[in-house]
């Protein structure tokens, strides 16, 4: 059995959550700086990232448990399936691409790599059985997040990003089906034309 105490496990999960949040923030940066609207498949990849974030949040709140990692794996496999679908869509020469390349690769290719790394990282974390033990920091008087600050900060950043994606996706797609490819923020345009 490989030993990893609950306290460092929670810190590692918090760092993981900050990395996932960083990917979502980078996606926002490209969306607003380059004025490139995310396509429906791109949005589904973001949903998968939030799903991975949800699994990490559970680890931060309740402490590490195998089924929390299972939730992360389910979300990452789903995200990997979406990004693979989008990579295959453009893999034939002459079929173009979606969005600008970043360091020579398109967003969906980077997303595929990220989901692969998440699966790999989660599988490695599952090896450390010592993290599943209850310790003093998990007592109720220490509150949620084991009384640590970093997990608390990481949790609220992810919560904010999940809520922000709800709003921006609603502005882009409205209550109906997202346009493929999207050309503008549908809801804002509808409000402008009606007002």
């Amino acid at each position, binding site marked *: 059995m490989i030993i990893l105490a609950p306290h460092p496990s929670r810190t590692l999960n918090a760092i993981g959550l900050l990395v996932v949040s960083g990917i979502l923030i980078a996606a926002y940066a490209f969306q607003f700086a380059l004025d490139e609207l995310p396509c429906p*498949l791109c949005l*589904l990849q973001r*949903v998968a990232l939030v799903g991975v974030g949800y699994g990490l*949040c559970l680890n931060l709140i309740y402490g590490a448990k195998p089924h929390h990692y299972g*939730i992360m794996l389910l979300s990452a496999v789903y995200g990997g399936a979406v990004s693979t679908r989008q990579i295959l869509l453009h893999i034939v020469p002459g079929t173009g691409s979606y969005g600008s390349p970043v360091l020579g690769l398109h967003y969906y290719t980077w997303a595929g790599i990220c989901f692969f790394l998440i699966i790999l990282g989660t599988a490695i974390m599952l090896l450390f059985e010592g993290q599943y033990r209850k310790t003093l920091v998990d007592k109720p008087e220490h509150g949620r997040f084991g009384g640590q600050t970093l997990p608390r900060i990481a949790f609220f950043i*992810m*919560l904010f990003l999940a809520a922000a994606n709800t709003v921006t*996706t609603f502005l882009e797609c409205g*209550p109906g089906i*997202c346009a493929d490819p999207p050309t503008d923020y549908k809801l804002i345009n509808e409000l402008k034309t009606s007002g």
Partner: protein
Amino acid sequence: MISLLFALMTIAIVLAWRDRWRLSYFVFAVTLAMSIYWLDFHATTPLTIKL
């Protein structure tokens, strides 16, 4: 409708934070099922690119 997926994920995170973990798992499971539906929908609609 994809915004609904993000909204449900947000709700699942909030429920977990408020110690309603059973409901939180249920909301996550519903979201994942809906996500698969939307993947199927967007993956099987006619392509807009020239092949």
